[in-house]
């Protein structure tokens, strides 16, 4: 028998601090697998954001810069403009990217910065204890929508992939989920494709990953998997929204 599955080299052999059943661990692993597969570990400069994934630098065996809340695409722009041949990625949650960071993500995408953005959408603010996120579903109870999110007053959940896909600067925009093995394997392909886009200087790549937050959804990890299927995927469809083979101009 030969080993067919083990920890990727780019992922440090330490325990994750994430809650049981949180999908951050799966997503971190998929990113590390892509880094291993493309043999770019020593070229990677990761940009950590603020949220449950703030400890990115503890997990990826690469150079990492911490960014203020929402600003990772701007920090990534600064790094990539200096080091055009390094691979720069951001790893952001729904508060970081879709609330405070909307300006930075739209403009980095619009400029076609040759970076990769991994966007973890779990419809809630995890790190700070379960408040409403821009992606919180209508009717969802959070600590700041105790009566359920209502359109009047709170608006509809933001569909970030759809928004970004309208921008000419985006080369690759996809949404995936990791709530079952088949979806994990598809997510692996999309995340790899996103990094390949950057390695081939083809411009801005973005993967939105639907994720579970059992703690703040007040569900078991297994029920949380079902919520992704039953509630999230119907509203946030899984597909490639934009794919362009135009070479980058950076």
């Amino acid at each position: 028998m030969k080993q067919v599955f083990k920890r990727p080299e780019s992922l440090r052999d330490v325990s994750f601090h994430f809650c049981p059943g949180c999908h951050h661990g799966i997503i971190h692993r998929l990113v590390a697998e892509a880094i291993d597969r493309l043999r770019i570990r020593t070229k990677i400069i990761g940009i950590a954001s603020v949220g449950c994934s703030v400890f990115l630098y503890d997990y990826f065996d690469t150079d990492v810069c911490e960014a203020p809340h929402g600003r990772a695409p701007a920090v990534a722009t600064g790094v990539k403009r200096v080091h055009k041949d390094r691979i720069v990625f951001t790893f952001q949650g729904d508060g970081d990217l879709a609330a405070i960071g909307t300006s930075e993500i739209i403009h980095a995408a619009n400029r076609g910065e040759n970076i990769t953005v991994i966007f973890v959408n779990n419809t809630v603010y995890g790190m700070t204890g379960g408040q409403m996120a821009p992606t919180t579903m209508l009717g969802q109870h959070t600590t700041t929508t105790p009566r359920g999110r209502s359109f009047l007053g709170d608006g509809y959940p933001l569909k970030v992939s759809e928004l970004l896909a309208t921008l000419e600067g985006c080369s690759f925009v996809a949404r995936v989920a990791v709530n079952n093995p088949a979806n994990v394997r598809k997510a692996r392909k999309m995340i790899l494709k996103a990094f390949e886009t950057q390695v081939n200087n083809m411009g801005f790549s973005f993967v939105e990953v639907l994720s579970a937050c059992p703690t703040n959804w007040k569900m078991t990890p297994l029920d949380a998997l079902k919520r992704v299927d039953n509630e999230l995927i119907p509203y946030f469809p899984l597909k490639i929204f934009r794919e362009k083979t135009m070479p980058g101009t950076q």
Partner: protein
Amino acid sequence: MGRIQIDIERCKGCGLCVTACQKELINIGDRINSHGYHAAQIHNEAECVGCANCAEMCPDVAIEVWR
């Protein structure tokens, strides 16, 4: 013909591997690790085909697979 190894200390007993296994070979056992979690365990190793579904779903990278 397959084999898995679960790192008991890394396991948080979330159960994602249990539901991922098509052949229902994994369950959350009685063994508690040093962090207080009931760790997952494979209760019927002989039936394992090494599909790695469990490992794909494990958020703690606690499972290694051979085939």
